[in-house]
């Protein structure tokens, strides 16, 4: 269980850090404004920009879904399988 927690936390913080950097580069007009990280992304000027702008959403969803997978889906699946096995053995 602790392993699953640290996997989820590692994904959340690691991917969140990468998302924060890229969104800070491309989707933040100013760090003194009230809208940060969520401005519309600009037109990509070159290949690196294209890759980075595409990776923003990839990192954001990886942070969210990865943490949810390890904290919710996998433990719930194990519980469900254990409950299913117990019920099958007892009957």
């Amino acid at each position: 269980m602790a392993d699953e927690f640290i996997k989820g936390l590692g994904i959340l913080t690691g991917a969140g850090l990468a998302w924060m950097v890229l969104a800070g580069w491309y989707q933040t007009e100013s760090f003194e404004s009230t809208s940060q990280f969520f401005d519309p992304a600009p037109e990509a000027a070159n290949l690196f920009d294209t890759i980075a702008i595409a990776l923003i959403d990839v990192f954001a969803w990886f942070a969210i879904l990865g943490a949810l997978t390890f904290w919710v889906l996998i433990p719930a699946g194990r519980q469900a399988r254990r409950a299913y096995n117990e019920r099958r053995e007892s009957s």
Partner: protein
Amino acid sequence: MTDTNDKTPETDGGEEVRADGTGIVAPDDETPTWRERKERTTGLSRLTYEYFERARREDQDLRQESTYVERDVLGFPTWPHETIRNLSIASFFVGMILFLSATMPPHIGPPANPSSTPAIILPDWYLYWSFGLLKLTPINPELAILDGQKIMADRTYGVLANIVVVGAIAIVPFLNKGSARRPVEEPFWAAVGVGGVVFAFTISVLAVQNLVPIAVPLLFDLTFLLPVVAGFVTYAVLKTMREGYMYDLNRRYYRLRPPK
């Protein structure tokens, strides 16, 4: 155990559990309910003793099986144990600082204009609570005996509120020595603590009321209601956690203090 491939779980002693009353487990029809176990207190000291004795014995066995040379020391040596750990932690944070300062350098704005006063003046965030206490104007009572006048200016009232809050915090150690090792041991004082923490937060929010998208009267009410609600919830949760047989056992465990 005739079939070695199909291992069933065993108790610590490796003996088979006999449920007919001859072993340490009560026979099935005499197994006490949880309510009965909670009400039974006489056998608890014996149970506690057996629990500790088993734990001590397991510890002793582990030490004897271990290849680690036991030295007569009180802790781990600084080198390499503590040093390596501290180095890795320090490296992580230094690396984080370098990474963030390299990838997201802060925007340096124009220099402040000393001849113009900003519209909103706030102290540093950790003093918001005190700043919020200066905004208690709605509860400065207008006394009928004084023809609806206030007995003191609102600013005096705010300063006195600071004294009241600091005084209340200073009194708490005299009311409760804090011998509990975890909140569940003293739910009331844990609730008081949670209420205080929540109040520190809500009064800080009140201090920046013009930045909060809530009507000021509602925000003012929430400032004093939320701590009470949080305290009640904490008390209820902790009281509920005290229910149960294992809590009594654990309380005995944790009440064993090293002799002075």
